Each structure stands twice: as structure tokens, then as C-alpha cells.
């Protein structure tokens, strides 16, 4: 993310607090640098506000409401799928996604919670290969 954000130390220190899955996903989905920054900050501030507000409400109401009744547990993956979808226009991102997703599901049963997500990072090894759609330099023979 550091290359997508501008500003001095103070702003970077604040940005670090807001650097999470959601802000990253929203920022990288934007086409240009300007909208990437807007996406990062707007998502970050909105999320920080409502996340904490939601936590407070949850703490106060306790177990009076079961989030599953409203399918709220599906709201997260649904949001993530909307955020990640624009990336799939790149074939290598699709491949990285498939590998990451498969690694996650395979490792879930025998690794501690959270580890499958870390292991899914191996999907990025698709990037080791040079992009096939890179402009080829024609050599006259």
C-alpha cells in the first residue's frame, strides 16, 4: 500500500492504523492513484467509525440478536467478493485467487484458525512467471 499513499510521517502513522483487508481491497480496485487514495481514506474512516459503533452496540445488546438470522455472517464474504471481482480481469490474478482459495480450504481442517489465510499468500507465486501478455519485442530475422 505504501506506494499508493502520499503524505508525511504523521499521515503514514494514521494510514497504518487503517491498513486492513477492506481498505486495501477498495484502494487496489481503483484505476488511478488519486481515486486509490480517496478510496483508502473514505473506506478507512467509515469502517473505523462504524466498526467501533457496531462493536459498542453489540457489546451493549449482547446476545439478544442472532446475526445468523439475518444472514449477517454472509455479508462479509459477499462484500469481499464484490471488492475482489474487478481484479479478476487479469488472468494471473484469477490464477492466484484460485490457488489461494484452494490452499485455504485444504488447510482449514488441520491448521489453527487464521493460518489458512496466511498460507493462501502462496497464490502470489503465480507472479514469478513473466506475464504472457507483456508486449513482445519483435526481432527482425
Amino acid at each position: 500500500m505504501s506506494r499508493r499513499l502520499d503524505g508525511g510521517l504523521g499521515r503514514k502513522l494514521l494510514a497504518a492504523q487503517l491498513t486492513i483487508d477492506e481498505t486495501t481491497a477498495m484502494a487496489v480496485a481503483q484505476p488511478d492513484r488519486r481515486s486509490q487514495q480517496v478510496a483508502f481514506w473514505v473506506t478507512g474512516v467509515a469502517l473505523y467509525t462504524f466498526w467501533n459503533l457496531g462493536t459498542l452496540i453489540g457489546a451493549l445488546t449482547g446476545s439478544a440478536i442472532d446475526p445468523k438470522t439475518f444472514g449477517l455472517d454472509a455479508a462479509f464474504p459477499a462484500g469481499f467478493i464484490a471488492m475482489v471481482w474487478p481484479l479478476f480481469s487479469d488472468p494471473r490474478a484469477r490464477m492466484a485467487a484460485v490457488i489461494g482459495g484452494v490452499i485455504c480450504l485444504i488447510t482449514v481442517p488441520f491448521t489453527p484458525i487464521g493460518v489458512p489465510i496466511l498460507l493462501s499468500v502462496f497464490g502470489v507465486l503465480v507472479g514469478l512467471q513473466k506475464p504472457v501478455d507483456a508486449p513482445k519485442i519483435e526481432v527482425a530475422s
Partner: protein
Amino acid sequence: MTWTLIILLTLGAYAFKVTGLVFLGGRSLPPIFERCLALIPAAVVTALVMKDTFTNGQDVVLDARALGIAVAGIAAWRKAPLIVVIVLGAAVTALVRQI
């Protein structure tokens, strides 16, 4: 004890993020790293979707969420706005649970 742990974890998590953003920031990396780093969101966010949809603790399960997320996926593919995708995913999941 609980609070000590919470504060320690908070500091750790923040330090981890500051390191990346402030100390490593701006430096350019060899293209091969750049290519790999650019793929992190696709790989990790997809893994998060898989985990949130098909698992329950350490069990791989197939339940109402699968249908909800399938509908959300179709909505995302049809370029529906973010909020529509989220509401559809949640609503379909809730509906399937009612049946």
C-alpha cells in the same frame, strides 16, 4: 491479564503495519517481487471469501452461505453496486436458513 494481552496485541499489530508503511514504504522492489505483491489481494481476499463461506471453525461445511455467496458472486459479476452485493448475499443466506 486480559487487558495486558489486548494492549500487547494492539501494539504488535500496529507496529507490524507501521513497519511496512513507514520504514519500507516508497522503496521500489525488483519487478519479480512487484508482480507477486500485486497478486496478494486476489489470493488473500479470495481465501477470506472461501473461509467465510465454506468453513465453520476447523470444519469445511456446505450450508446456506454457499447459496448466498453464489448469488453475491453473480451480482458482482453483473457489476452490481457493493451494497447490493452485500445485501443480496446476506438476504439469500437468511432466506435459505428460513426454509
